[in-house]
């Protein structure tokens, strides 16, 4: 089972990387581009957990280490395999 944690800059926190990437996309002609936010994806393979347990453990992992909640938001997804 795989826990996938998406970590993104917290709404309201300046994201200079997202701003630069957005500018790049618009320079390439993607005129429809509005706000861009750059984050990271962390995949954690776990064993011996139910889907519900994996979601709970993944959330705890994100809160305690994978995200810094002062400046980052996260969401957790669980998939088989």
């Amino acid at each position, binding site marked *: 089972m795989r826990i996938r944690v998406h970590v993104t800059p917290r709404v309201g926190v*300046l994201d200079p*990387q997202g701003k630069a990437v957005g500018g790049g996309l618009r320079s390439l002609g993607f005129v429809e581009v509005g706000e861009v936010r750059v984050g990271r994806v962390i995949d954690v393979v776990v064993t011996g957990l139910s889907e519900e347990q994996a979601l709970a453990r993944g959330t705890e992992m994100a809160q305690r280490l994978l995200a*810094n909640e002062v400046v980052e938001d996260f969401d957790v997804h669980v998939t088989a395999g």
Partner: protein
Amino acid sequence: MRFGVVTFPGSNCDHDAYHVIKNVAQREATFLWHKETDLSGVDAIVLPGGFSYGDSLRCGAIARFSPIMDEVRKFADAGGPVIGICNGFQVLTEAGLLPGAMLRNQGLTFICEDAYLQVANGHLPWTGLCPETIVAPIAHHDGCYYADADTLARLEGEGQVAFRYCDRSGEVTEASNPNGSLNSIAGITNARGNVLGMMPHPERNAEAELGDASGAWVFRSVVKAFLEGEVGR
């Protein structure tokens, strides 16, 4: 008075701090490997700059798991003076010893230059002897200080902002803020004032050969505060 300089895997300013403590502040200094758990022999602790654990995940995020950090927390809770410089500041915020967090520099580039610093609170153990402004080089990619509005108001209200980026004349302006830090914050302390985190490197401007040597006042300040019983366990 003896300083302990912590070496994490990836620290690279530990020798600079050690040199300044020995030769400029003229106090004893000892290196503390990050697996050390006995701090009984030291009176002050330096968390130096560098790239602890290769900046994996977030700058300073992994160093908090080093065995020495539990002892540093106890040392700080007991009132012992602690300074985190650059990566050391990032470690202190990640470990929860100081509030807020560091974001990527607003301009996205790694910045390596001298920074003029206004001493925002000159009555702290680490700033008591500092003149109104000092000069200390910055060398960082993630130095944009951020805290939520309540935390920021508390830091300002309680005199916990130690240093702000300023220009040569000591004025804090938008142009003098190199990295986008909120309120131009370059360094803060905990509520008690014994734990200081700062992104600029005072140890890199502590001798006349390297500039105006004004960074030395940070170290001299804490020596005086310690010897006079104003800070310490």
